[in-house]
């Protein structure tokens, strides 16, 4: 009851004075403009969602507001006053708290110890633990989770959702007026999301401004009142929820023209037999995955962050193998329990994170290229400088094939550009004679020219009869390259779309707007 009166009272006022405001913010990183002249106002008692594709600039904007980044130009106002934060601590003290996507709790410390870390009240340095637990209890009570979470529980014993709630409690204990949540629901289950949504409503009713970044449009429409859409570092529009449909927002997010040339798609008659068939396979993260991959085709895998794209690649390649279901390779049942076995069976995996998984940065280019062939050769096989066994000149051959621009193959791989590093990774798998290639974000963070040549190379692979599974978060790349499109959502395959499906079609499926999920969500949202 009190909540309602508060809200109706604050509504007319809040439209007058924003609690915090960013004006004409620009932030450049080497090679890209992450934010270009962006202005947004955030009002008290309002949940404001910020949406956009990967790389649209959402996280950069939030990091600027919370003092983690300093903008190149533009101003931030808080409570009507101009502020400039140089350290997250200053933003916290002013009343802006941020909850990052990755968790920031100390696993081996208690809830209370985590909440008050760095701000413990003490007498001559001595802490009254009972008092501290009592204060933590009060903070937990403030957000209504005191029955769920004990102040003395170790953070590592809590579920992901409970940890998220502790982070919120920590943010609240700073007496925050603005709470920024970066993808708070990415790791939560449906009921946990409901819990979080209720909490957000309560915080809102106390006059806090909540900024909510999410990829899941369903939740955005459930929770937020205003939606700001960013695209390629620019502000597209700030809209009221009532004025738009999810499809409109998706169009605002991806509405663009294709500005990049892709090689022509494969012809259906060129696709051969099924080389890889996965049926109802699951592991600790993935759930009931089924699909087929044919010789000579590019199967694009689309999906948002946390939808299970990378997990799928890792399961196929034996990094985190499937635990149930069946997998067939060239018609024969197989269980791939390790990357070694995957490589033996002529699979190649070009990983998403080049730096940590793809290349050995301090090894010369030649050794990087030969890594897989050396791994699968016999233990006492002969090693040459540029090859193994009978193929003595693999390195120059591969170098030519993938068109690496370097003066010497002795150069350490870390000194190559991102595009050339990716070509080294590619060469490594070409050397292994793989006939199934998994690409995870093949062109993330590399220049346009290398991008085009990698796309050409992927297409050339399929012409040689190689089957390609290409995971990408860049929709133009999915649309431009895929002969079929598999869309992932919530650790499952949400559905399959034909070649040349439109970006909004893919995005809708990837945000959970399928018929199946509508049914699942209706009763719950009816209650709310």
């Amino acid at each position, binding site marked *: 009851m009190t909540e309602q009166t508060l809200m109706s009272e604050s509504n007319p006022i809040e439209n007058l004075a924003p609690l915090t405001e960013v004006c004409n913010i620009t932030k450049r990183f080497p090679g890209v403009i992450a934010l270009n002249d962006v202005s947004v106002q955030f009002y008290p008692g309002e949940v404001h969602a910020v949406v956009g594709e990967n790389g649209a600039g959402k996280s950069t904007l939030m990091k600027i507001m919370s003092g983690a980044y300093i903008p190149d130009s533009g101003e931030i106002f808080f409570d009507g006053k101009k502020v400039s934060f140089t350290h997250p601590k200053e933003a916290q003290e002013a009343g802006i708290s941020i909850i990052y996507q990755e968790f920031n709790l*100390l696993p081996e*410390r208690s809830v209370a110890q985590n909440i008050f*870390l*760095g701000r*413990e009240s*003490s007498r001559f340095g001595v802490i009254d*633990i009972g008092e501290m637990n009592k204060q933590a209890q009060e903070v937990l009570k403030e957000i209504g989770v005191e029955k769920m979470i004990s102040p003395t529980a170790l953070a590592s014993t809590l579920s992901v959702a409970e940890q998220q709630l502790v982070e919120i409690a920590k943010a609240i204990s700073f007496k925050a007026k603005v709470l920024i949540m970066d993808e708070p629901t990415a790791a939560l289950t449906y009921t946990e999301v409901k819990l979080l949504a209720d909490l957000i409503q309560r915080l809102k009713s106390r006059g806090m401004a909540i900024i909510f970044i999410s990829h899941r449009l369903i939740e955005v429409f459930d929770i937020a009142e205003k939606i700001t859409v960013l695209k390629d570092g620019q502000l597209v529009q700030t809209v009221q929820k009532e004025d738009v449909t999810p499809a409109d927002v998706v169009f605002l997010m991806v509405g663009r023209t294709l500005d990049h040339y892709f090689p022509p798609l494969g012809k259906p008659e060129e696709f051969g037999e099924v080389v890889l068939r996965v049926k109802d396979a699951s592991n600790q993260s993935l759930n009931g995955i089924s699909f087929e991959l044919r010789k000579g085709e590019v199967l694009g895998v689309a999906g948002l962050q946390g939808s299970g794209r990378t997990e799928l690649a890792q399961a196929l390649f034996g990094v985190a193998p499937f635990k149930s279901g069946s997998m067939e390779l060239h018609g024969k049942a197989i269980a791939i329990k390790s990357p070694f076995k995957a490589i033996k069976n002529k699979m190649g995996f070009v990983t998403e994170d080049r730096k940590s998984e793809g290349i050995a940065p301090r090894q010369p280019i030649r050794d990087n290229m030969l890594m897989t062939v050396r791994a699968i050769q016999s233990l006492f096989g002969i090693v040459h400088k540029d090859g193994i066994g009978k193929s003595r000149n693999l390195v120059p051959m591969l170098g030519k094939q993938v068109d690496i621009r370097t003066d010497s193959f002795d150069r350490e791989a870390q000194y190559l550009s991102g595009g050339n590093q990716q070509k080294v990774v590619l060469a490594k798998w070409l050397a292994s004679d793989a006939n199934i290639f998994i690409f995870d974000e093949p062109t993330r963070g590399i220049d346009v020219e290398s991008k085009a040549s990698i796309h050409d190379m992927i297409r050339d692979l399929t012409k040689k009869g190689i089957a390609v599974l290409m995971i990408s978060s860049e929709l133009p790349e999915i649309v431009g390259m895929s002969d079929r499109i598999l869309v992932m959502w919530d650790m499952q395959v949400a559905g399959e779309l034909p070649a040349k499906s439109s970006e909004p079609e893919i995005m809708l499926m990837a945000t959970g707007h399928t018929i199946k999920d509508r049914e699942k969500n209706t009763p719950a949202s009816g209650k709310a």
Partner: protein
Amino acid sequence: MTTATASGNEFRRILRTIHIPPVFYFLILVFLAGGLLDRAFADGQIFSNPAIMLNIIVRSVALGIVAVGQSLVITGASIDLSVAYTISITAVMSSYLMQGKTENVPMAILVVFSIGAFIGLVNGLTVTKLHVNPFIATLGTSLIIKGIINATFSNYTGSVPESFEYFGYGTLGPIPVSILILFLIVLAGWFLLARTKFGFHLYGVGGNSEVARLSGVRTDRVLIGAHILCSMTAILAGLFLVSQMRSGAPWVGPNGVYDLNSIATAVIGGTALAGGKGGVFGTLGGVLIFGVLETVFNQLGVNPYLKTVLQGAIIILAVASYTIRSKKDAA
């Protein structure tokens, strides 16, 4: 009736909060096994003679004191390899300065503690400000101290006055003074970690330095403080050893393998080498295991090298049992 159940709950709650570090089960196991072997193959004094029990603890005093300091730096995700030579420099310097005269004792103590503070400060600054890996940073300090000692002292140097031997040999009633000092240090270490801001921040720095920094912890200061305290414990251990030996020898630190043994006992006691987890009671358990082993082997008259082999096996066994258990918890 309600009060009875309430106090019962309270009791259970207290039991849950005072959880016994698992290392003490190991300790009991080692003690029982050692005692039984002693009874079967030697005179059975371990079970029958309480003086032997005290002796086990007295043997552990020097290692115990350093291991408390080592536990602090390891909790902060650092390490200190310079404690052995810090002990040596304390032993030779203090006995050199005392020259057998009681009136020189306060001055000597002041000097060696200043040296300790300086060593700890250098270690802490190298680790935090120069960003040198703590293993290398303290190995470097260790070599520097070793060089200085070897260039200056080659044999027993000076002597301590009889009054100072009270530290090593005196008793308070039936209990040796050294044991009381060990327990005081352990208690102080526990209080520091479990009840003070410094301790809470140290867990933060060790658990995740970036999280601690963003939460407003002055991470560098905390870690430098831990290094200074650790060097101080090495100084105290050195003073204890010299009071027992009556004259300082430069080899006392490295001969006792105080650097690696203090790390090993801390880790056996449950302090995570990666930092952010652990406590000094566990460390005490680890130290006592080493003490029991030593006594058992002396009793049985076994080859001392076999003792080292067994120590190694116990370190591996203890730490492996922690990881296996934590994996089961996670699954």
